[in-house]
């Protein structure tokens, strides 16, 4: 009974027709065994979406399991290097790391042998479990590599190594066409999404929002700009601080909140955090927060407290923090890169910028035009409702299964 309510709850937000559409699409797939595998159960956009995608698929009658590949710290250092290398950073990955990577995949393959061998569809998320396929030469089902990262210009030596594994898959999924690498199989395109029922996105009452502001000594009477992201160079926290400093010369009451969520597979974060603290130069109006991975309601309250949300990334996979902010009626000033480009539409849902100067100008423009800011926020929320909720992503995963089973056909007619 409880599970049935989940679809109903999503129906209330996305529309009943959207849920009926999913149910009809899922009906012929009832009984299939589906496995998602990634590297963490908490922290990061992938884990967050799987927390709801998996039960939703189960409720639709598809036997879905979510497994996690875990390893020693060297495994995470190695896969973090892969992550950076896929995004274009020149990273040397020591041979010893690669051995640990392959050993961890081999151990996981052994642990999940029966499940993965017999699954109808396996989706391996990102590079961490990519090598698993090597241990299943006689696999029964279709295997798909889901790349959440912008792989358009990877560091070639690392990509060459990973390509050996991912080429074996039956298909890949990339978030955007521009992120894809040529591979000898179909490259499906599925943009990620947010979960409106996640604690990060549900409506909060004013009391709770106010309490969070008080906890972090944020003044509600003064304008607030916020960036939520891991402490990662690609997210350009230094550029955000510079934008704030430039804007503050014209808007002295301005406050900046940088809120970084932790993730168990991100060992580089601490170093960046130290540098960010130095760059803030003890400015009392800059709050640098290191929040635990499960601080969803806190992040939610911070986003709702902000006047403007920033995501000034230099490189971005998709930018789910942008989607989250838009869902909360906030205009977003985002870096002109990756998935931010398809979410932030200039003068409609926010502004795309290329420099701290550009960001500072847009901050000033929006703070001087509160009506425009409000209108943009409304448009942003509806844009997300139509395009970036989990129900849309689920529909595409279901469609993908049929597409995989009829890989050569452009039109697949189900009875």
């Amino acid at each position: 009974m409880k599970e049935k309510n989940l679809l109903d709850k999503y129906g209330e937000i996305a529309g009943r027709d959207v849920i009926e559409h999913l149910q009809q699409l899922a009906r012929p797939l009832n009984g299939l065994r589906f496995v998602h595998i990634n590297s963490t159960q908490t922290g990061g956009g992938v884990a967050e979406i799987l927390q709801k995608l998996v039960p939703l698929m189960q409720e639709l009658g598809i036997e879905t399991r979510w497994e996690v590949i875990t390893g020693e710290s060297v495994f995470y250092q190695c896969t973090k290097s892969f992550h950076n290398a896929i995004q274009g950073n020149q990273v040397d990955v020591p041979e010893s790391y690669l051995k640990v990577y392959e050993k961890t995949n081999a151990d996981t393959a052994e642990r999940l042998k029966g499940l993965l061998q017999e699954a109808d569809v396996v989706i391996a998320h990102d590079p961490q479990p990519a090598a698993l396929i090597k241990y299943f030469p006689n696999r029964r089902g279709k295997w798909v590599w889901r790349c959440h990262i912008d792989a358009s210009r990877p560091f070639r030596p690392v990509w060459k190594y990973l390509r050996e594994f991912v080429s074996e898959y039956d298909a890949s999924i990339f978030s955007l066409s521009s992120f894809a690498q040529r591979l000898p199989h179909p490259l499906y395109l599925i943009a990620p999404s947010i979960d409106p029922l996640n604690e990060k996105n549900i409506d909060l009452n004013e009391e709770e929002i106010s309490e969070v502001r008080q906890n972090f000594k944020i003044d509600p009477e003064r304008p607030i700009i916020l960036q939520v992201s891991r402490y990662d160079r690609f997210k350009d926290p230094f550029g955000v601080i510079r934008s704030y400093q430039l804007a503050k010369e014209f808007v002295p009451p301005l406050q900046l909140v940088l809120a970084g969520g932790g993730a168990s597979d991100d060992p580089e974060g601490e170093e960046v955090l130290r540098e960010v603290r130095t760059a803030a130069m003890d400015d009392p109006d800059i709050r640098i927060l290191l929040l635990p991975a499960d601080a969803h309601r806190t992040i939610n309250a911070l986003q709702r407290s902000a006047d403007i949300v920033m995501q000034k990334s230099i490189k971005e996979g998709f930018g789910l923090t942008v989607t989250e902010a838009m869902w909360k009626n906030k205009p977003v000033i985002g870096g002109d890169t990756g998935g931010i480009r398809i979410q932030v539409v200039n003068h409609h849902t926010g502004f795309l910028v290329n420099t701290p100067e550009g960001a500072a100008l847009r901050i000033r423009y929006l703070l001087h035009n509160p009506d425009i800011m409000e209108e943009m926020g409304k448009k942003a929320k509806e844009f997300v409702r139509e395009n970036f909720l989990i129900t849309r992503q689920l529909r595409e995963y279901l469609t993908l299964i049929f597409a995989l089973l009829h890989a050569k056909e452009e039109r697949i007619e189900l009875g």
Partner: protein
Amino acid sequence: MTESGLSSFAIKDCALIAIATGKKAQNLRELREHLRQIEPGSIYYHFWGGLLRPRFDDPEYHNDFASWIAHSLHNKRLAERLAVINPSTYESMEAVKNELIETIEESLDETEFPTWAERDAQFEFIRYQIVVFDTKLSVNNPKNFVDIIPGLSLGSIFYHFIDARRRNPNSLDDFQNWLLNFEGEYGVLCHMISGVCPYFTPLKKLREELSEVFKAYFQKEEP
């Protein structure tokens, strides 16, 4: 079956999934060369796929080619010429493709130095697979559409009103195609449906407009 023994209108639904082709263009010449080779399904996707993927409701240009040429090559003149190509007025996607190539060639003839898009703003050719499924709903009497259309999924609207034009030999949408079986009885209704333009209208709005057409027609018919 309808009262007069005709087949019922079976309501279907569909979902699209996009696939990267790996073909990219950074300037007009490259775009033209890829267009010559690309499968018609990709042209279709770049004209109609926007209806089923994230896009702002009020895009400046209504197909991906025009939009890219305007925003990445900054050639507004050519973008405007391409934006008016309405695929529903062509016999086939092959004909649309030829029109695109010809218009681009005209522009190339006028241009001495074709501009280049930035490396991360290339035109990416995308194709698609479409999954069609039966909703098990059917309509026997055209009047029933008045109640049914507002509850149809956007996938159903896409399938019956847009995808149909590519499927049906007469290039009509499924509603008109089915109404033709009634031997002229619904000529006025068909005329009203043909007035709904699919090219400039997002799917939600299309659903509303179609609903209004059926409502208006059958209200008028009431004694």
